């Protein structure tokens, strides 16, 4: 039953229909409602209990209970959402958008000292 | 005349001298001097012959010579009988006795037109042959000086019988000269037998079992051909009163005799059912092979066939010869693919090339004959060069396996270059083979011989395969291979370099060779003006191609002088160990990488093709012979 060029039909159909290729990066990235992008924190809800840090399988989160600092190494996070699941205060959630590639890791710090807003601190990895 | 007499007799005299010489230095002197003498005489004779367009014929009282020949033939018979008895090869004795008695009987009783014929003659063709034999043959003798010294250094197990060896070489040369100059078929037959016996003795040189067996194989096959020759002589003498080659060529309609002679030619040029002997000849020291494969033995066969080619146009003999030739060309070039022993590859390629020449001869028209003769010249020189270089490499590295020639260009650059030239001379456009293929293709199309067209088309593809892979092997460069000291003897170098120069020069002056030599010859043979086979424009293009190849290395160096290179080891999946010769294997150790050519034994293996080809070609011969003989009655 072997036939030559059995694939012709599909190939010709493809040739004369529109390609399925996304427009990305010109267009938007495709995400779903449940997409796990990156972890975000509502720092006001956080009580610095360190549970998330303790249960993070990749050790991406550091929580300083005394100085009230919550810090995440974005490039160290494996998007498992374990922290989101364990946080009793529901301070954490998963964004749909994900961290952009970069030459250096992005380590984000929330909380004290004083300023509540986020301060991005791009550290050279070799110095880390 | 004296020149011819010199060429025929002098080698025999030298041979006798050498037989008595036990001293290396004296032998050296004798060989070199006589080689120079023979070459010089042959050059003067042939070139003056060619330039003056002289066609010499000699009529003379030959009674004494005839007597000598009869004695000689009896001597040969005796020799065969004694050795055969010693090794219990009775079949051979039967063959030898049959044909010798046939000839002697004929000479004594059936020789009617004894006095009237020309016994010795020379024309362009003999001149060409004479040049080939002298130049290539003598250089091989010189080469043998150095080679045999090394050979016995490496092979202590064999008895050093060098006097015998050199004697045979020179006898061989003398016989070859005799063969080409003879017009009388009986004389020709006599020399024909000498070459058979000489090759038999040379092949058996080492006296090992295999050598003995192979030598007998060569003997019986050639005797079989000789038998054909003898029958043809008798047949011609009785029925047509023809005893000379010229008479034969001039007369038409002696199909049976032509077939028989062609049959003899096929055996001598080792065409398909009789290829075995030439392959077996490989066991002999390399100069033997070089001699058998290029200047002498097999050339005797194709010489005869080419001589006969005007008689084979479009008849059964022609069909037989061209079919066998074409078939041999294709079949043996396929087998050559599966061989890795360099000498064996060369042997198959000889058979294959001779197949092409044979096919050309069998084509029986001017164009193919033209191609055949040209190919004969190119082949003789290139093949001799190749055999000698393989021999030299073998003496250096202890192996003649092509696989062991990996990266030869780094280890023994000079030898490698010589070998490269030889291989290119064999097949690469614009060299020898190309031209002949071209003419042959055209001629066979014109004569409507489509089977041969196909055979040539396929055969040239397979030929290309085995040569190219050999070529590639030579130039494979791996890091850190070092130049090895080259201890090749000076006499060997002399011969190698002269050959290489000869190959290149021949290629460059090929248009002149063709126009000045071969075209008039063919015109003469066929008594018609041959058409332009390769136009001038095309010849110029070919010369341009050749020049391109020669200039390329220099040109590229200039072209790329500005490029910034970085040397980097070759890719092995990321696990080379340091250089590009090894990698980390599955057990974490170093393992040498090894690259081998393809041999495709399952498809082209000797065992797959050889026997089938034997049956097929025997079939072709038998059927066509039967048809010929049947048709005559």
């Amino acid at each position, binding site marked *: 039953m072997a036939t030559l*060029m059995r*694939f012709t039909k599909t*190939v*010709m159909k*493809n*040739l004369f*229909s529109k*390609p*399925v*290729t996304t427009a990305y990066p010109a267009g938007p990235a495709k995400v779903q409602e449940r997409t796990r992008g990156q972890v975000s924190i509502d720092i006001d809800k956080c009580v610095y209990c360190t549970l998330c840090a303790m249960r993070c399988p990749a050790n991406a989160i550091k929580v300083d209970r005394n100085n009230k600092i919550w810090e995440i190494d974005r490039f160290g996070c494996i998007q498992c959402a374990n922290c989101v699941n364990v946080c009793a205060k529901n301070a954490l959630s998963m964004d749909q958008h994900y961290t952009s590639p970069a030459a250096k890791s992005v380590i984000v710090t929330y909380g004290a000292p004083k300023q509540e807003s986020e301060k991005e601190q791009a550290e050279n990895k070799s110095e880390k | 005349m004296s020149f011819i007499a010199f060429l025929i007799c002098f080698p025999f005299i030298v041979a006798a001298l050498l037989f008595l010489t036990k001293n290396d230095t004296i032998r050296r002197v004798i060989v070199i001097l006589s080689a120079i003498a023979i070459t010089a005489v042959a050059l003067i004779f042939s070139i003056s012959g060619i330039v003056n367009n002289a066609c010499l014929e000699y009529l003379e009282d030959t009674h004494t010579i005839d007597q000598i020949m009869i004695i000689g033939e009896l001597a040969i018979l005796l020799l065969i009988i004694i050795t055969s008895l010693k090794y219990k090869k009775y079949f051979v004795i039967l063959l030898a006795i049959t044909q010798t008695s046939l000839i002697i009987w004929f000479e004594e009783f059936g020789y009617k037109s004894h006095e009237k014929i020309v016994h010795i003659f020379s024309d362009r063709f003999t001149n060409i042959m004479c040049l080939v034999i002298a130049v290539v043959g003598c250089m091989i003798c010189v080469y043998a000086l150095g080679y045999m010294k090394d050979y016995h250094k490496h092979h202590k197990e064999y008895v050093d019988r060098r006097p015998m060896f050199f004697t045979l070489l020179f006898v061989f040369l003398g016989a070859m000269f005799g063969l080409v100059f003879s017009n009388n078929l009986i004389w020709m037959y006599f020399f024909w037998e000498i070459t058979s016996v000489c090759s038999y003795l040379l092949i058996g040189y080492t006296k090992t079992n295999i050598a003995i067996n192979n030598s007998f194989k060569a003997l019986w096959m050639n005797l079989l051909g000789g038998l054909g020759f003898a029958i043809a002589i008798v047949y011609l003498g009785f029925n047509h009163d023809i005893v000379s080659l010229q008479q034969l060529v001039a007369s038409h309609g002696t199909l049976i005799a032509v077939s028989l002679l062609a049959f003899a030619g096929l055996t001598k040029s080792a065409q398909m059912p009789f290829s075995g002997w030439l392959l077996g000849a490989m066991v002999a020291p390399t100069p033997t092979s070089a001699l058998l494969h290029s200047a002498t033995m097999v050339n005797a066969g194709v010489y005869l066939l080419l001589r006969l080619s005007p008689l084979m146009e479009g008849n059964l003999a022609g069909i037989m010869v061209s079919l066998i030739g074409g078939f041999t060309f294709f079949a043996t070039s396929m087998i050559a693919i599966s061989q890795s022993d360099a000498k064996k590859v060369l042997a198959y390629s000889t058979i294959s090339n001779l197949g092409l020449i044979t096919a050309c001869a069998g084509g029986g028209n001017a164009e193919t004959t033209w191609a055949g003769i040209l190919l004969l010249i190119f082949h003789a020189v290139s093949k001799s060069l190749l055999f000698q270089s393989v021999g030299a490499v073998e003496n250096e590295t202890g192996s003649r396996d092509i696989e062991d020639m990996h*990266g030869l*260009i780094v280890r023994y650059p000079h030898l490698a270059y010589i070998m490269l030239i030889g291989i290119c001379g064999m097949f*690469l*456009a*614009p060299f020898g083979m*190309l031209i002949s293929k071209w003419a042959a*293709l055209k001629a066979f*199309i014109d004569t*409507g011989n*489509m089977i041969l*067209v*196909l055979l*040539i*088309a*396929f055969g*040239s*593809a397979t030929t*290309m*395969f085995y040569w*190219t892979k050999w070529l*590639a092997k030579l*130039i*494979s*460069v791996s890091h850190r291979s070092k130049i090895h000291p080259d201890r090749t003897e000076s006499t060997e170098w002399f011969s190698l370099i002269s050959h290489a120069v000869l190959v290149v020069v021949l290629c460059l002056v090929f248009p002149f060779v063709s126009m000045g030599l071969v075209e008039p010859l063919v015109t003469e043979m066929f008594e018609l003006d041959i058409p332009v086979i390769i*136009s001038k*424009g095309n010849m110029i*293009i*070919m010369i341009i*191609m050749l020049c*391109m*190849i020669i200039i*390329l*290395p220099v*040109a*590229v160096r200039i072209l*790329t002088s500005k*490029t*910034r*290179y*970085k*040397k*980097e080891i*070759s*890719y*092995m999946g990321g696990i080379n160990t340091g250089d*590009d010769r090894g990698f980390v294997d599955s057990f974490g150790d170093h393992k040498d*990488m090894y*690259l081998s050519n*393809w041999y495709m034994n399952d*498809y082209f293996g000797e065992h797959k093709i050889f026997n089938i080809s034997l049956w097929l070609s025997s079939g072709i011969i038998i059927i066509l012979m039967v048809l010929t003989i049947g048709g005559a009655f």
Partner: protein
Amino acid sequence: MLEVILRGLVFIIAAPFVGGLLSGIDRKITARMQGRRGPSIFQSFYDVRKLLSKQVLIVNSLQHMLVWGFLIFVVFTGVLFFAGEDILLVIFSLTTAVMFMVMASYSVNSPFSAMGSQRELIQMMSYEPMLLISAVGFYMATGTFNIKGIMQANIPAIVYLPGVFAGFLYILTVKLGKSPFDLSNSHHAHQEMVKGITTEMSGSVFALIEIAHWYENVFLLGIVGLFIVSNQWWSWIIAGIVILITFFLEILIDNTSARVKWDVMLKTVWAITLVVGGINIFILDIIR
């Protein structure tokens, strides 16, 4: 003579553009057949421009020389062809060119490169008879090996040589390195040979090979055209159309078949050569 030189020059200058564009179009059509957008049709030029600007890693300098030999002989082949010289000579020149390529890739002593060159040789061995038979066919159909002469024929060669043409199309797939016969160096998909004969070539050395392939492809499609043209002007238009159809067909075949193994290739190519090409010339011989 002047005309010959002129034609040669036109080929030398124009062929890379045509060849590069063809390869770009090839990639675009291929992409669309696979349902994706694909690169720009000038992609091949971008690639070569990049390669020319990159650092050259070589294993030995012999390699570079041989690659140049390949390019020069391919160009020479094309020049001979478009200058209207002898077709046998063209074929022999092409063979020489490929031999240079084979040696270049073997000379580097690298496993995949060496394997690739052996495969390239097999490919050559398989298509060579058909190439020669095509030349024979042309000679039989038009009475000359001379390309200029063939183009002047009263009746286009294809009329006499339908079988040979079919056979030629078959080996064209081998020659263009298209699936199912992309054994020695695959442009698409991955293969066990890594990049086959080009594995060890980088930067401008590799660019030379790409350029040589452009020349080669133009020349090969030229042979396709040679089957069609006659001394009628409109035959040139038909030849153009046939070339385009052939080109498309090759892309289609490329996209609808798996790479076969060398033995299948050798057997089928030889069988096709023998059956289609052989029978064609036998018949031609009889009716002549």
